[in-house]
């Protein structure tokens, strides 16, 4: 323990830039890298595009060869020793942290619509120079530290290696693989065979797989009742019973009103003086409610309406009304026929959280025509191909085991 104190002491005594480099030098280098990043950003004013195959494989290969060469030829060089040291790592983490703070706080172009690009890249951190440089520095320190623990191999280091190598693999493959990631959407209308998909810019791209929507199906939750302020069109959300899912026969209290749900029809239509069950497109949920308070005692039909039917609400006074909210989706899925160019045919159901795999593509249920809700004749699916995914996943699984190691063995041990 004394030794460490002595080292501490030594660190404060040594001159700046005298080896071994410590926190001070590390943070000066990091600040230099940050400055370089912003200078590059300001002068080039570019948003860096992810490179695709084969360039990303070459860059990845070169980067790993560079790390291996640095490690095996200059392992004892003070710079290499510094690059794999904790101070360099901490300064690299801080550099990534600074960029992530900007990304997490200011609206980003890839996330919020209508954000204008700026000089420093604050609105597109992900593809700006400072972030790329921060990641490169981070991966260099991480890679060298990992290599140092891996050679020569010692079993006691397995926790360290899983955590560090896992992160290195997942991050490197994630960054390089983003150039090869293909993500397209396909609009399927009932009984139409579709071969083309749209990319993010809306350009049509011919696909090797075709889909034909046989039917779009949706289950909804029962709608909710809410108290609305009709003077400013807002809905009351405070209180246990503010938004109450309809359940026939139930009664509850809210803001001095005693509300009873006398009847509920999932598919109904307004005819003359009330709602009646129907089995047709555009039918709307409706409920017969009874409302009692000191000033009111009434029973009325209300409905949230649909694309084909008007909504109706119960006005309580000149400010408040009881309204029915649009039902929320519980589950939606597309029944499709799949045709692959080489002749394979399939029939499947694509549902949220249950993607369908075909020919290296994963197909996701994305959306539908919200105006028509469960009567939608349109289903939007998303096709994703990510050839680097197995590499990223191998890194992720290493980190999962590494995390379990931290939980069960981490404390007190050297990791």
């Amino acid at each position, binding site marked *: 323990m004394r030794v460490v104190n002595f080292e501490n002491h030594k660190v404060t005594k040594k001159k700046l830039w005298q080896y071994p480099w410590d926190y001070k030098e590390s943070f000066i280098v990091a600040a230099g890298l940050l400055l370089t990043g912003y200078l590059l950003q300001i002068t080039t004013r570019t948003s860096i595009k992810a490179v695709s195959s084969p360039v990303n494989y070459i860059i990845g290969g070169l980067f790993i060869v560079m790390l291996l060469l640095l490690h095996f030829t200059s392992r004892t060089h003070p710079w290499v020793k510094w690059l794999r040291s*904790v101070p360099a790592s901490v300064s690299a983490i801080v550099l*990534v942290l600074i960029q992530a703070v900007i990304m997490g706080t200011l609206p980003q172009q890839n996330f919020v619509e209508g954000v204008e690009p700026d000089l420093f890249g604050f609105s597109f951190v992900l593809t700006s120079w400072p972030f790329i440089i921060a990641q490169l520095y981070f991966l260099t320190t991480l890679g060298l530290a990992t290599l140092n623990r891996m050679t020569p191999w010692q079993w006691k280091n397995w926790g360290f290696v899983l955590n560090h190598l896992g992160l290195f693999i997942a991050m490197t493959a*994630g960054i390089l693989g983003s150039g090869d990631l293909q993500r397209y959407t396909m609009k399927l209308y009932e009984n139409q065979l579709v071969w083309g998909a749209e990319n993010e810019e809306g350009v049509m791209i011919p696909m090797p797989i075709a889909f034909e929507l046989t039917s779009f199906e949706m289950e909804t*939750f029962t709608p*909710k009742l809410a108290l609305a302020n009709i003077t400013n069109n807002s809905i009351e*959300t405070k209180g246990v019973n503010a938004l*109450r899912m309809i359940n026939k026969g139930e009664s509850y209290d809210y803001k001095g009103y005693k509300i009873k749900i006398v009847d509920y029809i999932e598919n109904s239509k307004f005819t003359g003086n009330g709602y009646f069950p129907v089995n047709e497109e555009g039918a709307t949920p409706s409920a017969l409610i009874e409302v009692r308070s000191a000033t009111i005692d009434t029973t009325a039909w209300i409905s949230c309406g649909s694309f084909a039917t008007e909504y109706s609400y119960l006005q309580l006074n000149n400010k408040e009304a009881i309204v029915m909210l649009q039902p929320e989706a519980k589950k939606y899925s597309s029944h499709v026929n799949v045709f692959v160019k080489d002749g394979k045919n399939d029939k499947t159901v694509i549902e949220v*959280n249950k993607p369908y795999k075909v020919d290296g593509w994963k197909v996701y249920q994305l959306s539908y025509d919200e105006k028509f809700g469960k009567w939608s004749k349109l289903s939007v699916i998303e096709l994703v191909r990510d050839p680097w995914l197995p590499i990223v996943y191998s890194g992720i699984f290493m980190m999962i085991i590494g995390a379990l190691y931290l939980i069960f063995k981490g404390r007190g041990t050297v990791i």
Partner: protein
Amino acid sequence: MNYWIYFSHYAFFAIICWAICMLFQIIKIKRDKTLPIILFAVLGGFSMIAFTYNLWQNLGRPPMRTLGETRLWYALFLPIIGIVTFIRWKYKWLLNYSLVMATVFLVINYLNPDTYNKALMPALQSVWFVPHVLVYIFSYALLAASSIVACYGLFEYYRGTYKNTILQLANNLVYVGFGFLSLGLLFGALWAKEAWGHYWTWDPKETWAMLTWLGYLIYIHIHYRYPESVKPVLITLALAFVVLLLCWFGVNYMPSAAQSVHTYTNA
């Protein structure tokens, strides 16, 4: 039927139990007996377990969607962490802190009753939902405890009564908490691939979750390098918690979060 109407009964019972537990620590003759202290802490904890279980059954979905529901899980996990560390290391102040914090969460929930909502959007209906959220909440509770240990350590440091056991305790909590935090992040990535088509989309909440992870990563590395240094390490730990709080509460209010899938609504 809305099970939240029974919340006040369970919460009241738990708070009374925990108050008795703390009372036992004050009364002179009972002070050195640990059994009644543990017993009442556990009894209050069971009340929260019972309520959470019943609410889950009643909602027909895991109660993990709204902020009020997550507060409930803190009120459940914090006492568990407090009780376990008390049994293991006999830290009374940490037990009391966790009970007080749990009480605060219960009172907040009592004052801001959650709206009744059974709806769970399709993307959230996944086998990953429960592990992702539970692991996260558990890690947040552990890391919160570690940061309060750090603050206590700083307080002792300035009073000149600092003992090294404080940082050891904080370190134990951080390692376990950080392990769970990593699991939460990684489970989230695996889930996102199934639900949204990509494992990492730089959604503001994801970015802040990564920031939290980086914060504790810095602490672990600094402490590893100079195990003997105290003040900078304790300050780092306290700061990491600030990032965690920003991630949990702050993201909803940031300009970046306009289209986040993670903004918790009370509706």
